[in-house]
């Protein structure tokens, strides 16, 4: 099996789908000729031609509209938004248009669009390049939200997203693009949207997380083991739909849980997960569920980014708080 970085796996997924289905189109700012600012699409224009893989003018709302209209004509667009902060420029297309196309047209049209965008801190990117906006998307009815944490999942989830007949917001963590390699099968396979993965089993506490924080949480779990604490780590993989069954099953076993997210603390994914644990498993809890998250400020890019982001130490402190409650 091939060893790939996450960005290679993402490119491989797009190659597989471009090859399999001629309705798949790939476009965005700089994705064609140079292959994207991170080279996620490098070589794809050469392989599939300018008709299917192309550069657009620099206008995110235009890219969103293009995707919407192409979806109406039966195409399956993969629209790259160069950095997550630029999402606000295309928010209407995503949150007010693609999300309700099926509803508005009584099912005549749909929006089989994958909006891919890099996000995530820890790589010293500029302002408005790294925000974690999954919470906004989770609160938008009609959108699926996917956040892979490793190369295998990234390829399988992206293939699922491209084949999905509803819009998918696919978030690619910048820090994970090239930080490690993993085994990735050749050709096509899917990882289902809406299914979490228990990446570490444990009996004392459940750490629920996604994206780059999966790795932070796994490291924290190793440290905790030395203290005699067995932490179970759940990689959600998909935030909408949320695999609450896997979460509840784990909480029933461990009776304690924390949610770790890179995003700001208030509202958002962690808050939703806590609310659902409260609804479905409160009598199984020995301690309140807590959040390990960033402060409710704008993203601290640059100088104090490292202190701002959740880290291993904060995860360990969070676990100890619920263990010692």
């Amino acid at each position, binding site marked *: 099996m091939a060893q790939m970085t996450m960005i290679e796996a993402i490119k491989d997924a797009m190659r597989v789908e471009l090859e399999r289905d001629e309705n798949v189109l790939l476009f965005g700012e700089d994705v064609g000729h140079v292959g994207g600012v991170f080279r996620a699409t490098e070589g794809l224009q050469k392989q599939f031609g300018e*008709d299917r893989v192309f550069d*657009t*003018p620099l*206008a995110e*709302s*235009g890219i*969103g*509209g*293009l*995707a*919407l*209209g*192409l*979806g*109406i*004509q*039966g*195409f399956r667009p993969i629209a790259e938004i160069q950095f997550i902060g630029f999402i606000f420029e295309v928010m*209407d*297309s995503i949150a*007010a*248009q693609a999300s309700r196309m*099926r*509803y*508005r*047209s*009584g*099912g*005549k*049209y*749909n929006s089989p669009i994958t909006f891919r965008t890099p996000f995530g801190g820890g790589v010293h990117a500029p302002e408005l390049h790294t925000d974690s906006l999954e919470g906004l998307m989770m609160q938008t*009815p*009609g959108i*699926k939200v996917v956040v892979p944490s490793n190369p295998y999942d990234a390829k399988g989830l992206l293939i699922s997203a491209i084949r*999905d*007949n*509803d819009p998918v917001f696919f978030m690619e963590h910048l820090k994970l693009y090239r930080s490690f390699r993993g085994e990735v099968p050749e050709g096509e396979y899917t990882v289902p949207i*809406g299914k979490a993965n228990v990446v570490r089993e444990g009996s004392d506490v459940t750490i629920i997380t996604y994206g780059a924080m999966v790795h932070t949480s796994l490291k924290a779990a190793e440290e905790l083991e030395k203290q005699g604490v067995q932490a179970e780590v759940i990689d959600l993989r998909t935030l909408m*739909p*949320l695999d*609450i*069954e896997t979460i509840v099953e784990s909480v029933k076993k461990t009776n304690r849980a924390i949610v770790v997210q890179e995003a700001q603390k208030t509202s958002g994914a962690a808050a939703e997960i806590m609310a659902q644990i409260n609804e479905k498993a409160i009598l199984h809890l020995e301690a309140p569920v807590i959040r390990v998250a960033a402060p409710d400020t704008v993203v601290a890019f640059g100088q104090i980014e490292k202190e701002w982001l959740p880290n291993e130490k904060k995860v360990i402190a969070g676990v100890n708080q619920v263990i010692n409650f």
Partner: protein
Amino acid sequence: MDNVSVMEKANYEVRTNKVMPLSILSLDGKVNEDLLPDLSDDQLRELMRRMVFTRTWDQRAISLQRQGRLGFYAPVSGQEASMIGSEFALNKEDFVCPGYRDMPQIVWHGLPMYQAFLYSKGHQHGGEIPEDVNVLMPQIIIGAQIVQSAGVAMGLKKRGKKNVVITYTGDGGSSQGDFYEGMNFAGAFKLPVIFVVQNNGYAISTPSSKQTAAETIAQKGLAAGIKSVQVDGMDVLAMYKAVQDAAERGRNGEGATLIEAITYRFGPHSMSGDDPTKYRTKDEESEWVLKDPIVRFRQYLEAKDLWTEEDETKTIEEAKQTVADQIKKAESTAKMTIPGLIDSMFESTPSHLEEQKKAYLEKEGN
């Protein structure tokens, strides 16, 4: 500096020319034969029938809205020429991306009228567009239809079809970023889109003079490198011709066209509390009434013996009857349900929504 030539300011300053809107029909019903589009007597009569029908439908819809039998309604009276004339120049396979006031175009393009009424009432079946009808439902977000029309047109082009997309907005809509983005995409990818701006002078209450410093809205298309024209939007023949020309260019692979139609809405912005007397003068309204698109065209057709008072009465009666039948059909359509709404969010309803649906179904059973 010897090799630097002396330049006049006129050489490097970008300017637009003075423009006069395309007009074919005079106020007293005479036509400019040189510009007259090739329309048969039957087609001319049909154009008139549709305009008269639409005005009656508009009056009936206003009254239905006042009776609480319709939801949101944006009156169309005054804009019949720009709406009907433009749609009439299209083929059935051409695609219409309307703004919120553009219900007549999509109904004449094939959407059953009772569905337009259902849409107004907030019933999902309203937007369930029949298979052979190529329209989107009216766009609420001003400008969103403009970027989408570029996408639909790119799709048609990639499929090798000889069809065009027409999209409508108003003078206010031309201030949106999406207006420029949509035109720019259509220009850059050479897409068959016809952008129609129905400039009726007001975006709700804000006059065009406060909307832009540009002398014309038509000139905004020049920035996107697309063909741009200004048309008398109260002249149904001019509207027909402008769209026919633009559609031909689109079909021939010559790209997009922006059409600014100078028009006026006789009624309020919508039936939701807008009072035009707060921002328009009676004098101004009376001036525009003289340009009434139906009156002008009627004079022309009567002189050609193509339209009689009897035709007019018959059309009005037909419209009244159709509206009565169609609203009855809308009102007898089974009410939407929350479980039905839930099932329309995704192709396959995820478990959290299934759970919420179940809660509603259980309540209904009680």
